[in-house]
């Protein structure tokens, strides 16, 4: 999809969030074009999840502005932002454990963006569609407690996708998966992206960033340290120094 010249779908201008005296996110600027797929990387404590919480309305900004399709969403409640079409997953998945996978996804379908709101019957129909998309169709009627970790991660993505977002924020959905499980999860993200959803994802797994992202944004101490094509960014000496370390840098070079 060509995004050249297109206005930004999401635009962050000087976004700042402080906790006590510490600026967890400190004047962050970037734009995401519709249909793009962008990775956010950076050291633990760099402000990645805080930034996601700012975008999805969990936190109020202490400075700057966030614009969605041209209009400010700063200060808006999380459910209103979800209604506008910004869906998200959480790092620590919190499914309803005694309910089935299908029921969990139907809940996402009942809320979320304006297009998603519908009756029970339609919600379950949408849930079935989404479960098929993420590869959980065969386990739709299993209680969540019976799902493996990779399947719970799929379910977390499915719940967010069922809200029919135009922009999907994924917070470390591949943590704790091995390389082969990651490759399977990447395929799922590609399929979701191919339905026309813009994707902004946080990951520490470079296989994900290189495998699926068109652009990477590196955060360090709440600021943007580097931004660009993943292959270029991961060779940036500042990024190796602050985040990757020599062992991983060498691994990337040799692969």
């Amino acid at each position, binding site marked *: 999809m060509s995004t050249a010249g297109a206005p930004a779908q999401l635009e962050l201008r000087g976004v700042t969030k402080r906790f006590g005296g510490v600026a967890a996110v400190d004047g962050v600027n970037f734009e995401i074009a519709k249909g793009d797929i962008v990775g956010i990387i950076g*050291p*633990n404590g760099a402000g990645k999840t805080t930034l996601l919480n700012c975008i999805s309305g969990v936190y109020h900004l202490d400075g700057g502005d966030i614009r969605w399709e041209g209009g400010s969403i700063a200060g808006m409640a999380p459910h209103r932002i979800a209604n506008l079409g910004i869906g998200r997953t959480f790092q620590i998945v919190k499914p309803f454990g005694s309910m089935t996978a299908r029921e969990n996804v139907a809940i996402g379908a009942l809320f979320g963006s304006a297009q998603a709101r519908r009756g029970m019957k339609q919600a379950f129909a949408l849930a079935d569609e989404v479960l098929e998309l993420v590869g959980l169709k065969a386990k739709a009627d299993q209680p969540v407690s019976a799902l493996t970790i990779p399947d719970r991660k799929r379910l977390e993505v499915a719940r967010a996708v069922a809200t029919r977002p135009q922009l999907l924020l994924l917070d470390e959905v591949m943590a*704790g998966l*091995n390389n*082969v499980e990651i490759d399977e999860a990447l395929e799922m993200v590609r399929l979701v992206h191919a339905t026309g959803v813009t994707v902004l994802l946080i990951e520490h797994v470079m296989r994900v960033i290189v495998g699926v992202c068109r652009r990477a944004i590196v955060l360090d101490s709440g600021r943007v340290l580097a931004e660009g094509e993943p292959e270029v960014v991961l060779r940036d000496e500042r990024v190796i120094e602050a985040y990757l*370390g020599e*062992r*991983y840098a060498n691994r990337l070079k040799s692969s």
Partner: protein
Amino acid sequence: MPTASSLPEPLLKVRGLTAGYDAGPVLFGIDIDIAPGELIALVGANGAGKSTLLGVLSGLVRATSGTISLAGHDVTNRRPEVLVRNGVAHVPQGRRLFGTMSVEKNLILGAYLRRDREVRDDLGRVLGYFPALKDKLSRDAGTLSGGEQQMVAIGRGMMARPKLLMVDELSLGLAPKVVERLIEVVQQINRDGTALLLVEQDVLVALDVANHAYVLENGRVALSGPAAQVRDDPGVRKAYLGL
């Protein structure tokens, strides 16, 4: 079965271990040997039974059959505190720190069962491994970064003075550079004489540093041998490394 242990008495000897939960068995006839001072990698897909195995080895999950012996003594289905006292420490997946307690208290809790006078010395030794924690001892553990929390979790395990330290998912959610640093420390702990059992999804990292490896598949040991040999196994490369 072939293992690196040529010593007369392994530190840990597991034979025919079967265990599981209400829903059914998860482990089926596991045999494992760990010699003193070894660094063992335990790899396998999610759901293969790795964390359950660590649970049984630390007395949190009951064995339904089979035996576990530690330095020649049968410790099958002994209580967790007995296993800790006999030298098995478990660093659980997700760190499981007491978030609203200080870093120092979290570390000292690792020595809960000890009555000797060397606990303070060992605190110094742990801070030697993790100097980054020195000026954070009074901070609530929950306010630390993920990497620092993993340091506290490993440090807490070391405060029990274990002969065997079991670390579940060292790299989970951590930046590459932090993982590199933690792996170096874990190797140092091992060189200083503590045997290590490392469960790790980043299989390449685990097989790089281990001297011996076990591959679990559906609750059974599918393969074991020198780590370098396991790393080069075509099945392992395809199933876990994605190469």
